[in-house]
């Protein structure tokens, strides 16, 4: 009896289960559906049931990986035959509200993109800019990179100058100094991943200053260069100015040309001294001569006046101006400094001829580079 009851229960459960599947299938077959597919089968198609009266939101990633160096990015969708462009962005999800009153189909269109990386500088822009506002570009587009040639590292002291660039570390080009502040690469075809590497060198500011006259040599220079500097001291009327020494840096001399070796930002100031010899020659001596001549005339007219001591004093003054006592050479400091420069240069020449210094280094020391 018990066995009969158990058998009956099992049989009724089976019959109910079969009937429930039929009911569920019947419900699904009556529902509206959404068919989602991708142009060129970039991703597998799928189908979703739409429940009438409820809001349905379709979600799709804006970008997805194709391989190690490329990705796909959504460009448009077609809803029941009507194509709509999508606002391009690199990250996040694209959402679309689908009406549930009837069945629909959505076809997404995506484009392949490749990255264009830039190294060596942060001060650059893409021409044209990326459709996804990053460094990824659609297959087949041509992109240039515009870069600022100089970047100031420390105001008026140190700056970075772009000197060349390479594409994918295989082709190299120098960037000439044509006076422009920026450089734009030729168009790069985006059909694969590309890396643009900018080469830079540091430049240092040399300031040549003076309280009077005009200086030369100020500017930006690369490390290791020897720069000639100069001063046109000029004068204030009859008072002439002359350079006595340079201060602020180790100034060497190549013949009469003062030079500064650039190993960082440097300020050199000229020490100027006043030279009154022209004043003495053109004003004081004539006055004294006129004085003496006048005095002699006066003496001839009035012989009774005692003149000798005054005349002697004036003559002695003239003597002192015309024939100064010079036992020692006044320009000895300068001569010794010139001798020092000659010796330094001769040692560099010697090391070069003995093949201790390479050609390129020697050229740098000679300031020819």
């Amino acid at each position, binding site marked *: 009896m018990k066995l009969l009851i158990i058998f009956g229960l099992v049989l009724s459960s089976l019959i109910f289960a079969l009937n429930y599947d039929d009911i569920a299938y019947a419900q699904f077959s009556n529902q509206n559906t959404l068919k989602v597919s991708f142009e060129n089968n970039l991703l597998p198609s799928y189908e979703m049931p739409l429940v009438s009266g409820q809001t349905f939101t379709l979600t799709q990633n804006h970008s997805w990986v194709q391989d190690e160096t490329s990705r796909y990015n959504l460009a448009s969708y077609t809803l029941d035959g009507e194509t709509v462009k999508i606002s391009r962005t690199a990250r996040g999800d694209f959402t679309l509200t689908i009406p549930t009153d009837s069945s629909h189909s959505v076809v997404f269109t995506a484009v392949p993109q490749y990255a264009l990386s830039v190294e060596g500088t942060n001060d650059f822009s893409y021409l044209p800019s990326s459709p996804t506002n990053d460094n990824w570009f659609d297959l087949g587009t041509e992109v240039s990179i515009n870069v600022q040639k100089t970047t100031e590292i420390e105001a008026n002291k140190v700056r970075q100058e772009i000197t060349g660039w390479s594409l994918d*570390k295989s082709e190299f080009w120098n960037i000439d100094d044509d006076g422009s502040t920026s450089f734009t690469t030729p168009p790069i075809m985006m059909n694969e991943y590309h890396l643009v590497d900018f080469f830079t060198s540091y430049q240092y500011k040399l300031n040549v200053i003076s309280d009077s006259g005009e200086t030369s040599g100020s500017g930006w220079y690369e490390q290791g260069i020897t720069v000639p500097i100069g001063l046109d001291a000029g004068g204030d009327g009859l008072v002439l100015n002359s350079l006595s020494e340079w201060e602020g840096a180790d100034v060497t001399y190549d013949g009469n040309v003062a030079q500064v070796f650039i190993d960082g930002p440097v300020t050199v100031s000229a020490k100027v001294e006043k030279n009154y010899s022209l004043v003495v020659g053109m004003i004081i001596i004539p006055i004294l001569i006129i004085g003496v001549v006048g005095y002699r005339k006066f003496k001839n007219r009035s012989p009774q006046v005692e003149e000798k001591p005054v005349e002697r004093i004036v003559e002695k003054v003239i003597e002192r101006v015309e024939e100064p006592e010079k036992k020692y050479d006044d320009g000895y400091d300068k001569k010794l400094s010139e001798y020092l420069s000659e*010796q330094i240069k001769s040692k560099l020449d010697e090391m070069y001829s003995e093949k201790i210094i390479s050609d390129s*280094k020697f050229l740098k020391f000679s300031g020819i580079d």
Partner: protein
Amino acid sequence: MLSEEDLIARIMKVKSLKENCFKYLEEISKELLTQKILFAIAELTAEKMGPVKLSEIAEKTTGAHDKSKQDLVRLTIEKSLLKCGLAEKLKYASNDVRYILTAYRFQKIKEIDSFRGESSQPIGDVFELPKNTWPISDEFYLLLAKKHGYEQSLKKLHSDFDSDVIPRGKYETLNSDYKKSLDQINEKLDSKYSGLEALVVSES
């Protein structure tokens, strides 16, 4: 980039090489690409004061830096220079590999295997790469030149004073200034470039 101290250490070191590796430095290998690469790495390193890229070595040794030339140079470096410990490969980034020599002076050795165990015996003099290929900063050469300049200038100053060309006051001032400058140069040569001056100048 490598520090200046590291580069100087490579110059100061004398590396022992077995005959099969020392041959790359000898006259018999003059026409071999391996020796050309070795000298190219040395010259480029001296110019840049740091390790050099494969494309630069290829350009200097073959006159081109296309992929096939770079592959040829890389293979040569790997099969000979790296294997013998003459050069070193430094990886700065996944796509930035550079090369540098491990030393600039080399001693040929012969390995002796006896009942006392293995030992090595030097053969001949120390071989050094040309001094103008050593990675030494410009500052060092300028210091050497200035040292010579100040020494000679002081000699002239003493002699001029003895000949009564300048007065005592001027002599004392200049003597003190020039000596001070010379002392500063010597101090820098002794501290930053210790041992290098003797190697570069005295043995040249």
